[in-house]
C-alpha cells in the first residue's frame, strides 16, 4: 500500500516536472513578451486588460515556482483563454 502510494507520488512528480513545468515555462515566455507589449502600447481605458494580463503573468510565474499541479493547470488555462481572446 505504502509502496503503491510512493509510486503514485513519484509518477505525479515526474508528470509535473517533465510535462507541466516545461509547458508553463513555454507559456511564460510568450506571456512575458505579451505583457511588455501591452504596457508599451497601452491606451486609456485598457487598465482592466492590463491588470488581467499582469495577473496571468504572476500566476504563471508563481505556478512554475510552486509546482502545484492544479495551480499550473489553472494558470495555463487562464493565459490560454486570454491569448485566444486576443486573436478573436
Amino acid at each position, binding site marked *: 500500500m505504502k509502496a503503491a502510494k510512493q509510486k503514485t507520488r513519484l509518477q505525479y512528480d515526474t508528470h509535473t516536472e517533465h510535462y507541466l513545468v*516545461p509547458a508553463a515555462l513555454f507559456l511564460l515566455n510568450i506571456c512575458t*513578451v505579451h505583457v511588455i507589449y501591452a504596457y508599451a502600447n497601452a*491606451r486609456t481605458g485598457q487598465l482592466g486588460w492590463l491588470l488581467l494580463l499582469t495577473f496571468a503573468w504572476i500566476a504563471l510565474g508563481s505556478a512554475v515556482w510552486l509546482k502545484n499541479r492544479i495551480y499550473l493547470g489553472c494558470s495555463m488555462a487562464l493565459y490560454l483563454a486570454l491569448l485566444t481572446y486576443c486573436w478573436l
Partner: protein
Amino acid sequence: MSKRAGKTENKKLFWRLHHWVGLYTGILIGTLSLTGAVAVFIPEIDGWIIRHHYNALSSPSPHGTSQFGQSIDSLIHRYPDYNSFLISLPDHPGQVVQADMILQPEGGDLRRVDFFIDAGKDRVVGQRDQQNSLANYLRQIHVRLYEGYWGRQLVGIGGLALAIVAITGLLIYGNFMKKQGWPKLRKTMDLRIIMADWHKLLGISALAFNIVIALTGAWLGLQPWLMRCLDINTPNTFKAPIVMEPEADKALHVNWDDVLTAAKREFPALRPRQLTSSTNGSATVTVRGNIAGQIYERDINVLVLSKTDYRPVFQYDVRAKPFGHKFYFIQEAMHFGDFGGLLLKALYALLGLTSGFLSISGFVIFLLRRQKKKKFSRVNAWKKTFVYSMTVLLFLVVIALISLFIGYTTASLVAGILINTLLIGVIGYALFRYLLSRFNRRHQSIA
C-alpha cells in the same frame, strides 16, 4: 517492436539529431545569437552615432512638424543624376530627417549616401556613406554574415538548425532530467554536470522564445528561395502605371507638407516614416509607415499618391488584409522584437544570448564527455572552446574594422572567402568522417 522499445528508439533518434545538428551548426548559432542580440538595438545605436559622432541634431520646428522640403530640393539640384531617394522621418523630437540617396556619378559606381537634415531649420547638417556605416555592418553581419552569395540562406539554415535542436531538446528533456526538478542545479565540482545543468535549465526556460526566433529566422533567411519556389509575392507590392517620361517625372516638384497633409486625410491611422518620389515616369509619391499598437514589420502600410494632385492611387492597410498577409508581415517584427519599446528589446537581447550560451555549453559538454573515451585533458576542452569563441569574435571585429575603415565591398569579399573556406572545410570533414566510419565498419565485418 514493443511500444516501449519504439519510444526508446525515438528518443535515441532525437538525441542523435540534437547532438549532431548542435555540433555542426553550434558555431553558426552562437555567432547569430551574439550579432542578433546587438542587432535588435540598431535604430538606437545608429541614432546615438548620428547625434554624437556626426553632431547631427534637429532644432525645434516653429511649425511643430518636420521641415525638409528645401533641403530635398537643394540635394536634387546638387545631384541631378540621382537614381532614387528615400526620406526617413524622425521617430523622436531632436532626431534628424534622413535623405538616403542612390547616386550614380558619370562613369562611376553606384553610391548610397545618407544626408542628415535639421528638421527645424530645414538645412543639411551632415552626410555619410550608408554602406560603410556601423548600422549597415550590424544588419548585414546578422542577416547574411557579410557573405553576398548565399550568406542569407546560410543564416536561414542556422535558424532551421536552432529550431531542430530546440524541439529535439524538448523531446529529450524528460529523459535527461530524470528525477531532477526545475530549476535545481546539482551540487558538484564536476564541470560537465555543472554545464549540463545550466544547459538544461536555460534551454527549457527560453524554449518558446528560441523556437520563435529560430522559425522566423529560418523564414527570413530562406525567404528569397522559398518565395521563388512557392511562387509567393510580397503582399503590399504596387506598380503604378507609367504616365510620362522618367525625366519629366523627376522634374515634377513635390510639396512634402501637402503630401503629409494628404496622408493624414486619406489614411488617418498611418504614422508616416518613409517618403519616396517616383523617378520611373509613374508620377507618384509613396508614403510608408506604421499603425500604432500593431505587431507587424516596420513601414509596411502604404499610401501612394499622385504627384500632380495628391489624390490616393493605392492604399495598403495591413489591418484590413487577410490572415496570409498578416502572417507574412509578422515574421520580422517577431524576430527583432521592435513592437514593445526598449524593455522588450532588452528582453529579446537577453533571451537571444541564451542560444549562444547553449551552443557553447553544448560544445563543452561534448568535449568533456569525449575526454572520458579519449585521453586528453580537461584543459584541452576549455582551450578548444576558448579558441573557437575567440576566432568568432576576431572574425566579427576584423570584418567590422574593414567595413568601417576600408569599405563594404572589401569586407564582403574577405567574409565571403573565410565563410566559404570554413563551409567547405566543415562539409569535407563531415564527409571524410562518414566515409572513414563506413570503411572501418566494412573492414571489421570482413575481418
